[in-house]
């Protein structure tokens, strides 16, 4: 049987419906999943606010939330290539944001961003670590 014969007017409508359902299925599944889980797979921004220096972040919270990567890259270029130290260090972030899992990794995992900062850079998470590292 030829394809054109099989897809007569009636069958064509069924085929089109099936096709549309197939295309929309993943979208629907993700929406249903999102509603069922109550949006819990989107990480809440967790910040440790116990530190009194909390208000003294190097930039405003909103700026850091969206542009911290560019900000850190700029500082990196200044420090590594020009030898200009602005006082902002990766370890310095740990002064207030003690928990790296919550502060860095949580969002990056959700956004599938793979960082290798901490293969070489030390991120002190406790006072004991900070003191033993001589910081």
């Amino acid at each position, binding site marked *: 049987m030829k394809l054109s014969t099989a897809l007569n007017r009636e069958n064509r409508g069924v085929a089109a419906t099936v096709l549309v359902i197939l295309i929309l299925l993943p979208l629907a599944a993700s929406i249903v999943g999102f509603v069922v889980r109550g949006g819990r797979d989107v990480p809440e921004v967790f910040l440790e606010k116990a530190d009194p220096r909390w208000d003294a972040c190097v930039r405003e919270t909103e700026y850091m939330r969206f542009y911290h990567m560019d900000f850190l890259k*700029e500082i*990196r270029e*200044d420090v*590594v*290539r*020009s*030898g*200009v*130290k*602005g006082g902002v260090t990766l*370890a310095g972030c740990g002064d207030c944001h003690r928990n790296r899992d919550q502060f860095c990794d949580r969002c990056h995992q959700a956004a599938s961003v793979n960082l*290798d900062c901490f*293969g*070489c*850079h*030390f991120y*002190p998470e406790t006072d004991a670590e900070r003191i*033993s*590292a*001589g*910081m």
Partner: protein
Amino acid sequence: MRWVMDRRDFIKRGGTILAGASGALSLPVVSSCTPEVPHGASTLAGKRMGMVIDLTKCRSGCTACMDACREENNVAFFGDPRWDVHWLRKVNIRPTEEYEGGEGGAEKTVLLMCNHCDDPPCAQVCPVQATYKREDGIVLVDHHRCIGCRYCMIACPYNARYFNWRENEDWPNKEYPKRSHGVAESCNFCAHLVDQMKLPACVQTCQDIGAGALVFGDLNDPQSEVARLVAERSTKRIREDWGTEPKVYYIGL
């Protein structure tokens, strides 16, 4: 009065008006492109950091500088020559030629390191400009950019470059980053200490133990001790005929 203008005048005047207008219009655009917060200005320009190694003062068998370097810069050491990284290394050389004293002549211990060439072959071949010469003449690696191709190791005529074949777990100085697996590295004159107006770890240690064989400073500054030593003493650099213009000078080589 009729305004008569031939083609030449029209193009001349039109061009002048156009150029003026575009210049005036572009002014605010250009000024708005300048960043609000200027980047920190580098203070390295004009310097030429170098080292003088006085082999007559260098103690044979002493490894203080090498140990201090490892401690400061987290240089990988596994105890296996295939993977060990050395920023500093001491070699024993013995004369073989007749004019050097011939076979059986006195052995000499020489400290070898990155020579921080003024014309560094490693930086020339680096395909990603990870290895570069800073404005003060220190040759260093931006490990963020290094892709681990190891061209620099082939290019370096002094064999001063090493590759991190394995992940280094030792991390004695947490204030300074270690290197992860897959990047090349060499001595960087402790650039992070030089930026803080301190001496490199090897030089500081050599002074602390009282040997004072290593002297570090700005070769462009005639007041500095390195410049004075280079001017007054008989110094040699390794293979000056290669034209790499190394900045590590030897006394008594």
